[in-house]
């Protein structure tokens, strides 16, 4: 016990003298970021699974593009299931000359079956819970709609041709979907008013949700009865089996956050290793003395490791608490993308960060700490006797196994863990070698330089390994930040910039065949520049050469994306403009039963000329033979199609038309007239959609950046740790230089050079890497044009140099402040 007391006393002294400050800070950063991510993921996942029924709005849901057969509802009734249904679609709303694309949801009287609705009746924001939706003749609106359309409660809002009294503000609905279009503000109305809107017509793009609740056995029985009767465009979801998926954007953000937190752990780990190295070296003398006084090697190890365990326990506990707060911040940033009530955190996740803290400490601090065990008692007489450096395999082996475990924890996928680790290690080695090469180059050039530059650069070359770690830590963090910043902006800006000035900026969907001629006339009269009108039939690709299409795709590929949803199928006599025939021939005469497939989709699904493709439209099925493969430009803002059929193929199915057109800013009021004249037509304003998309991306990147700030902080801890490792030597050298007549200005300028070059190098490397990654990403994955950002080449290294110089010079301020007398005192 007395030994433990000694350990505690030493720990207390060291922490009071600031010896352990950096170690504690690094540990706090690692623990708080891991705790935040663990809590965030766990709460998100458990919200999704615990509230599955509520998120589905029922025990079982059938989704369908059309009303289901009455027999299905009768069967549900026979099984004593209670049912409700909702109809969702998009419509442009206009009031007070303001217009917005809204997501309309018409509900039946029994809605919601599970969960509750929350509403507010004024600006005060007091929420109340209700169990039924709006009465016929009334509508509940998202608060955003009120401000955009300049409405207040008690006003009238026209949905299509039906005026509805706005009575409540809707703040929460249980079954809100997490897809992109759910970001359009909500209008909830009663489905008895639906017919009067005039919006729903055969072929309209509408989603029907039939919801059921009842005894568990009855639900299973109903599902089994239902399954064989579903057509490919219908789905049945059961709250026990089909946990609602997070939207893909949120899913990716979660994965990216996990990886970012590994970055934080890695950088913090490097800082811990460096800080422990300095701690260890400063304890050689004391340890030699203790050895001289009779302490055995094992006892030395116990003495120090018990201090680190206590330190780890305290720092991890504080870090977990900080992580909890950080996680609250993360949910706040993403609040609009998430359900309103989030499942509480479990002790397990809170504990996860705690464990990470201890494991990181063990993984990164143990190897340098083990050196203390090696300290010889003879050092009391011969100070130059230093213990051996820790074995390389121990240092890197421990760190790598630790990081692999954490990656596995986030991915739950061995293959992915191995590939992330492999790519990570290779990148680190390549970058490390590159930096080493650069440092060697500087070393070679040193001879011809002035004293000031030599002194400055020698500071950087003094400890190659530490310099490489610092440059790596900063450049990797900056790369991650630059990527999230650039991708967000470029996706939208590049696309907008590429479009010709008069490229269509509006899409009109759901134009019924009898309206096409009127539409064309109106365009002509108003001098609106429009593209072709294409007929659209919603259908799904189900088989290629009689083999189910699901068997031919890899996950997340373009093909995978295309077969899990209804496609817009069209037909034309001639090849659409901006489409190029890549293989096969275009039909020259009336030849029903042929299809032309977009090239990239054909590649992804392995479709070749002459293949037989099976499609379903509603419950009907038909086949078509692949006559040609087309390439096309998706960014023309004109209707584009994966599948174009020969005329006559789709005649049997209800169709609507789609077109796009250009409206100058001055013509915007024409939109109101169009929307009023054709209430069933959905008009999408590209600007508005881009704006909504931008908001979504901004929130996701904010969440990711939130975590990257932790990485940046960890980077600065690495910098400080590296500075402190060499601080004693720097102080002696500074004092010696001043003894020989160097003034402070020279020393300060040399320090400035050292840290600026460090900042410049890591900044340039970060921009170089991010530009390379962006180039690959844009040209290979996103297919948007790549423009090198020249201002980043200037700004990032410059700001990085300034920031690192400020922090670095602050860290070494003692070198200037310690009197040169020290050099004599030290003798």
């Amino acid at each position, binding site marked *: 016990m007395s030994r433990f007391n000694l350990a505690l006393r030493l720990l207390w002294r060291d922490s009071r003298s600031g010896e352990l400050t950096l170690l504690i800070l690094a540990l706090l950063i690692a623990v708080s970021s891991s705790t935040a991510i663990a809590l965030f993921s766990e709460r998100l996942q458990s919200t999704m699974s615990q509230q599955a029924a509520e998120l589905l709005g029922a025990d079982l849901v059938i989704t369908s593009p059309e009303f289901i057969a009455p027999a299905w509802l009768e069967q549900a009734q026979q099984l004593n299931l209670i049912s409700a249904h909702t109809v969702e679609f998009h419509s442009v709303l206009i009031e007070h000359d303001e217009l917005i694309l809204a997501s309309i949801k018409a509900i039946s009287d029994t809605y919601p079956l599970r969960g509750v609705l929350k509403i507010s009746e004024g600006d005060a924001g007091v929420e109340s819970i209700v169990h039924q939706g709006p009465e016929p003749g009334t509508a509940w609106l998202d608060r955003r709609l009120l401000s955009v359309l300049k409405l207040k409660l008690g006003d009238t809002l026209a949905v299509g041709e039906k005026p509805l009294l706005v009575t409540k503000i809707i703040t929460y609905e249980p079954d809100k979907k997490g897809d992109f279009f759910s970001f359009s503000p909500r209008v909830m109305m009663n489905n008895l008013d639906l017919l009067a809107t005039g919006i729903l017509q055969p072929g309209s793009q509408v989603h029907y949700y039939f919801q059921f609740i009842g005894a568990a056995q009855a639900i299973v029985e109903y599902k089994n009865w239902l399954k064989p009767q579903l057509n490919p465009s219908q789905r049945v979801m059961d709250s026990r089996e089909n946990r609602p998926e997070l939207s893909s954007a949120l899913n990716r953000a979660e994965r990216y956050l996990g990886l970012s937190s590994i970055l934080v752990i890695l950088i913090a780990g490097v800082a811990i290793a460096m800080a422990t190295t300095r701690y260890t070296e400063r304890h050689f003398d004391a340890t030699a003395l203790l050895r001289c006084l009779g302490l055995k090697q094992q006892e030395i190890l116990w003495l120090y490791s018990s201090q680190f365990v206590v330190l780890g326990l305290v720092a991890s506990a504080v870090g977990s608490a900080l992580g909890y707060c950080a996680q609250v911040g993360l949910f706040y940033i993403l609040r609009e993308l998430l359900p309103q009530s989030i499942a509480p955190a479990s002790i397990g996740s809170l504990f996860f960060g705690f464990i990470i803290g201890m494991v990181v400490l063990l993984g990164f601090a143990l190897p340098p700490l083990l050196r203390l065990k090696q300290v010889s008692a003879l050092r009391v007489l011969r100070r130059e006797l230093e213990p051996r450096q820790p074995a390389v395999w121990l240092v890197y082996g421990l760190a790598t196994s630790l990081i692999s475990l954490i990656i596995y924890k986030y991915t739950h996928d061995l293959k992915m863990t191995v590939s992330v680790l492999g790519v990570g290690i290779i990148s680190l080695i390549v970058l490390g070698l590159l930096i080493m090469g650069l440092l060697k180059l500087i070393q070679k050039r040193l001879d011809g330089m002035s*004293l000031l530059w030599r002194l400055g650069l020698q500071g950087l070359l003094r400890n190659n390994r530490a310099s490489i770690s610092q440059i790596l830590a900063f450049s990797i963090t900056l790369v991650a930040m630059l990527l999230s910043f650039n991708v967000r902006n470029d996706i939208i800006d590049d696309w907008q910039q590429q479009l010709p000035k008069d490229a269509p900026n509006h899409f009109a969907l759901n134009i019924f065949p009898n309206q096409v001629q009127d539409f064309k006339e109106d365009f002509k009269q108003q001098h609106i520049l429009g593209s072709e009108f294409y007929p659209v039939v919603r259908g799904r690709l189900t088989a290629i050469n009689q083999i189910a299409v699901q068997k031919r795709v890899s996950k997340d590929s373009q093909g995978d994306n295309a077969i899990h949803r209804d496609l817009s199928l069209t037909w034309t006599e001639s090849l659409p403009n901006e489409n190029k025939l890549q293989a096969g021939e275009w039909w020259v005469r009336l030849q029903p039963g042929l299809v032309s497939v977009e090239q990239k989709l054909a590649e992804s699904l392995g479709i070749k000329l002459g293949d037989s493709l099976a499609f379903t439209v509603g419950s009907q099925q038909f086949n078509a033979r692949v006559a040609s493969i087309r390439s096309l430009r998706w960014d023309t803002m004109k209707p584009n199609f994966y599948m174009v059929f020969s005329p006559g193929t789709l005649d049997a199915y209800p169709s609507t038309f789609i077109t796009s057109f250009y409206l100058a800013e001055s013509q915007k009021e024409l939109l109101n007239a169009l929307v009023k004249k054709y209430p069933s037509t959905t008009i999408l304003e590209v600007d508005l959609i881009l704006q909504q998309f931008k908001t979504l991306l901004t929130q996701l990147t904010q969440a990711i950046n939130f975590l990257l700030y932790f990485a940046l902080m960890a980077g600065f801890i690495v910098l400080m740790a590296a500075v402190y490792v060499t601080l004693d030597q720097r102080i002696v050298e500074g004092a*010696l230089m001043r003894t020989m007549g160097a003034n402070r200005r020279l020393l300060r300028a040399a320090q400035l050079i050292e840290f600026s070059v460090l900042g410049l190098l890591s900044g340039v490397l970060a921009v170089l890497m991010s530009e390379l990654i962006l180039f690959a990403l844009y040209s290979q994955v996103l297919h948007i044009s790549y423009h090198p950002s020249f201002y980043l080449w200037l700004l990032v290294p410059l700001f990085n140099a300034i920031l690192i110089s400020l922090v670095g010079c602050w860290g070494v301020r003692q070198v200037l402040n310690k009197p040169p007398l020290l050099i004599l005192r030290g003798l």
Partner: protein
Amino acid sequence: MKTQINQVTNSVIVTEGLAKSVLTSEGVLHILSSIDLIIKSGESIAIVGESGSGKSTLISLLAGLDKPSSGAIFLNGKSITMMDEDGRAALRNQLIGFVFQSFQLLPGLTALENVMLPLELRGDKTAKAAATALLHRVGLAQRLTHAPKQLSGGEQQRVALARAFVTRPAILFADEPTGNLDSKTGANIIELLFELNQENRTTLILVTHDHALAARCHRTIRLEAGCLV
């Protein structure tokens, strides 16, 4: 008064009533008291005394590394007492050379670069040539590009000697220059030190415990409890 002024102007180092005291938790501790010294150009002085007698404090004050609590110091006729640290640094660069017990070479620089450093700090363009010549003079022609850790203790002290003399300083402070060397190497270094001192006509101020070494100097100053005896 006139004699005093003459003494100040003709001497390299003059101190008047020099004292140094520090405040400790147990009150004021007097390290040096009333030191009056006149050291003439070209003189060699040995400062001897027990550990803690104030030897290091005295040379730190004489070299302008520290400020006295009271009294005045004149180097080459200029009072350094009122100068700030950077002013004294500039004066050190012009007038003073140092040799330390533990060599104090900068580990990141080669032998040549260590010797060039004081000249470069002056902005001397001939630093390389002068440093190379002096390293030849101390017998290290083959060691120019070696880092300090690649040199033996004796070789390191030779580099330190070359560094001290490369600026042809008016005053050289040597603090136990053989303290970290074996007796044979130490003797060689002392020979070299006195040779260089004569060649350069430097005023030598040597702190030592070695009476034989002290005897080779023109004068010996003994310190006891901070006072000249």
